[in-house]
């Protein structure tokens, strides 16, 4: 599992780097809303994926990388949930309050950091997921569509093959 996890991280990293740079360039106001938490290490943990995501939203030294869970840094704030739920939260398609209170989402560490990140992302118009998918043209959009199909409901988290 660990080897698989490390391999996954290596494979996905170039994509993550491209995605985050693109988003940062297109949505500079996002960083202002993060305020002092530009320097905070966020660990975003999609429970079904073989790795977690480490985000440090510092506009001058942006970090967004896939890390095996056992090699993840001690985060300032942790956000854990099903991948599709996290994706929807990022797009503000899902209401963070509702998700958290239903306990589909788990947060720990610096709560203010999470609230700032949530509010910063919420101020982005449109869909970051769609934007990301579009970066990879038709194949990208197809992958996202398939992902969304595969998670028909986030209540059950049912994963249709």
């Amino acid at each position: 599992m660990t080897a698989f996890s490390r391999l996954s991280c290596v494979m996905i990293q170039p994509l993550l780097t491209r995605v985050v740079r693109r988003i940062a360039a297109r949505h500079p106001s996002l960083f202002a809303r993060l305020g002092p938490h530009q320097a905070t290490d966020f660990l975003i943990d999609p429970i079904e994926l073989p790795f977690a995501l480490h985000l440090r939203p510092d506009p001058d030294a942006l970090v967004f990388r896939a890390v095996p869970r056992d090699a993840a840094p001690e985060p300032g704030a942790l956000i854990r949930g099903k991948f599709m739920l996290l994706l929807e939260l990022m797009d503000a398609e899902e209401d963070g309050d509702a998700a958290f209170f239903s306990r589909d989402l788990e947060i720990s560490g610096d709560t203010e950091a999470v609230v700032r990140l949530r509010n910063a992302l919420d101020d982005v118009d449109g869909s970051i997921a769609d934007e990301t998918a579009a970066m990879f043209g038709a194949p990208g959009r197809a992958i996202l569509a398939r992902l969304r199909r595969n998670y028909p409901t986030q209540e059950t988290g049912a994963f249709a093959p």
Partner: protein
Amino acid sequence: MSLAELICPAGTPAALRTAVDAGADAVYCGFQDATNARNFPGLNFTPDELADAVVYAHAKGTKVLLALNTYPPAGKVDLWRQAADTGARLGVDAFIVADMGVADYIAQTHPQVRLHLSVQAAASSPEAIRYYCERFGVKRVVLPRILTIPEIKQVRKDIPCEIETFIFGNHGLMVEGRCSLTNYLTGQSTNMDGVCSPASDVEYKRDADGTMSSQLAGFTIDCFGPDEKAGYPTICKGRYTAPHRPDAYYAFEEPVSLNLSRLLPELIDAGVHAFKIEGRQRSKSYVRGVVTAFRHAVDDIRAGRPADMANLVALTEGQKQTQGAFETKKWR
């Protein structure tokens, strides 16, 4: 029949555009500082953002109401005055105020801008409301969430201004503008700093058995079983024990959300001029869903059609909801 304007929350510029596009008659928002009661991290507007927001909203016929609804502590009054000056310059349609000094300043300096009395002023009787109307020229009062519909109807007859009531969202019973609970535990004040259980003091602690406690400044506000729905550690929504209550209970109120969708026709009939949706701290998906559903319902009612209430009820599906004080006074 009253106009039944829909007053919608906007915590960010994106949420504001979402609310406008979803059919809000007016949006309310605040600056990124202590001048409003939702001074939460990462939320609210810079003056530049508000300028753009006013242009966007006005282009679509939506009004912008600026919340200046906190109480400046002595020595810091200028921050509120500057916020009012900025709002007036940017062309906001009304100020929502609570502090008498702030109300007086706006009435003197920006008499062309409407004054709305915030729920934070806690004006819950015709006499209190008339005081603000006669002394400051207040045009609308946001009523505390503690009156029944017959009481609202009576108040309407006894006051010279419009009434705005909350119809959806967070349900609080503490008299707003008179609560120092957060300051008692955290050192940050709801009235002076615009915060309520600030995120910087919030921590969730999980035990190995799956139970979780929500803490504020190190005080346990609530504790949840592994499958129990969790809540934010708002002091008045916590569970405590008392001498007669050895098992922790909701000493103040159940964590429920207000949903008056079923009472909309009666509220309109009672003369309520504007319906307020709570939730500047909520996401734009919440704003989109709630505003869209209430827009349809209000339009239907105004056109004399039966409104489809199912959508509105579904907004809080699975969560506890209440019609609060509005239906009965038994809760008191």
